[in-house]
């Protein structure tokens, strides 16, 4: 640890590098934060690698990166080695093809759809067509959070569901298939898909903050204490500052406070 720190400092001549790696969901937000941060603090160089939550956590533990980004909760073994900071929350929204007439679901219906009890849109007042469920991969932070809140387990997920990796892929899949239903982060909402209300509540940041809308999860920064520099701490401080949180909300995520 020590020798590493020295190296960074001596070679830096005033420039510190903070290496961050992990979740592809947190990554874009972190990039935006880093860009703004750099305008303020030009002698800190922030490197962001979007390689998946687990890889990021592994890197934080092994010291390859100073900070890991995670969109899932730490497991026990991991938590014992790392310190975590929630930098933002991410809202999750259920999406369908824009042509779909179904615009509102109860949480129970969402569960029934994803567990295969409801298999046709006409059971929900829509057209007579098969439902194609699109989910994220097992282990993904969004999926963990989604399943936990909706209340079903991975084993219960309907077996012939399409598994897409990443918000973008769910979006593309749903946007090109009028049978489909899936879930994505708030940040990725656009015109190509329709967002659904849950229990009559619209998916917005306010509704998440006032706890009317329950589909959300934390975005985590994790680090190992022995491998954490001042510059890293300053960056996290910046994110949690009002300036930083403003950027969080501009990016479509939900501020911590």
């Amino acid at each position, binding site marked *: 640890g020590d020798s590493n720190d020295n190296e960074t400092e001596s070679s830096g001549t005033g420039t510190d590098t903070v290496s961050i790696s992990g979740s592809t969901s947190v990554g874009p937000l972190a990039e935006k934060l880093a860009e703004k941060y750099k305008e303020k603090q030009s002698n800190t160089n922030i490197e962001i690698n979007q390689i998946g939550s687990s*890889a990021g956590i592994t890197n934080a533990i092994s010291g390859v990166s100073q900070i890991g980004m995670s969109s899932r909760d730490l497991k026990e073994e991991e938590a014992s080695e790392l310190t975590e900071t929630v930098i933002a929350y991410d809202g999750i929204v259920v999406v369908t093809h824009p042509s779909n007439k179904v615009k509102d679901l109860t949480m129970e219906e969402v569960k029934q759809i994803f567990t295969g009890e409801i298999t046709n849109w006409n059971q929900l007042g829509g057209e007579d067509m098969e439902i194609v469920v699109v989910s994220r991969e097992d282990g993904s932070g969004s999926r963990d959070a989604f399943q936990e809140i909706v209340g079903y387990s991975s084993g219960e997920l309907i077996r012939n569901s399409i598994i897409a990796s990443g*918000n*973008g892929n769910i979006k593309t899949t749903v946007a090109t298939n009028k049978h489909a239903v899936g879930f994505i982060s708030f940040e990725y909402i656009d015109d*190509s898909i329709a967002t659904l209300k849950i229990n009559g509540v619209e998916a917005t940041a306010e509704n998440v903050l006032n706890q009317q809308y329950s589909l959300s999860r934390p975005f985590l920064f994790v680090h190992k204490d022995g491998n954490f520099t001042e510059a890293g701490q300053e960056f996290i401080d910046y994110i949690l500052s009002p300036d930083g949180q403003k950027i969080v909300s501009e990016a479509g995520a939900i501020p911590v406070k």
Partner: protein
Amino acid sequence: MRKFKDNFMLGLLWFSAFLTVAVLVVIVGYIFFKGFRLINFDFIFGDYSPVGHGGIWPMIITTIYTIVISLIIATPIGILAAVYLQEYAKQGRLVRVIRFATESLTGIPSIIYGLFGAVFFVTTLKLGMSIIAASLTLTIIVLPVIIRTTEEALKTVPLSYREGSLALGTTKLQTLYKVILPSAMPGILSGIILSMGRIVGESAAIFLTAGTVAAMPESIFSSARTLTVHSYLVTQESGDIELAAAVGIVLIVIILVLNLSATFISKKLNKADY
């Protein structure tokens, strides 16, 4: 009857070629159609920004770095390995083992290479997430392609060339470098071109070893993002297909330029081409 069979086969040949070309046209056409709107000076030569579509200049540079470094390492090793297998080794166990190893390497999914590279080059050899770690991983990926294509090219060099040269009191090495390799050049070159394709097209193995830092790399020990990784992230996370396609256009142009220069170089090198 024979006429019919001939015509039928000829038809199949035409049909297959037509199909291949059609696929080519449709795919390239699709990519251009989807992406051309984003192509402008700032997009290509601008710095990256997480907001909007960003510039991709850092990724272009990173891509070129990975191609050049991987090929600089893999091409000589691959060619020399093929030379060993074809020109030196007694066709026995060792050769079978080596050949089997290279062939097995071709089928390993790139994600496994990526994981391996992340553990071996990034962590064990302490290269960190860096262009060099990715290039070394890519070297392993393209080695089999170069070895195999070079071997095939060497096989086509007539024995009489070897005899003619050796009988003049040249060493194997001289024969190799003056007669055999030049005659095998076109084949070797197609292997290199295929490898470039593989390098350029790789994503999983790269983002696990070079990372995805969207900034201009300071050196080959920096973490950085290649064009393909960029288009991968973009599809994966934001589903911005236009952007992915625009990056694709740039990639196609880069490959085109590289292929043309490779062909040009081989023409220069290959004395057989009078």
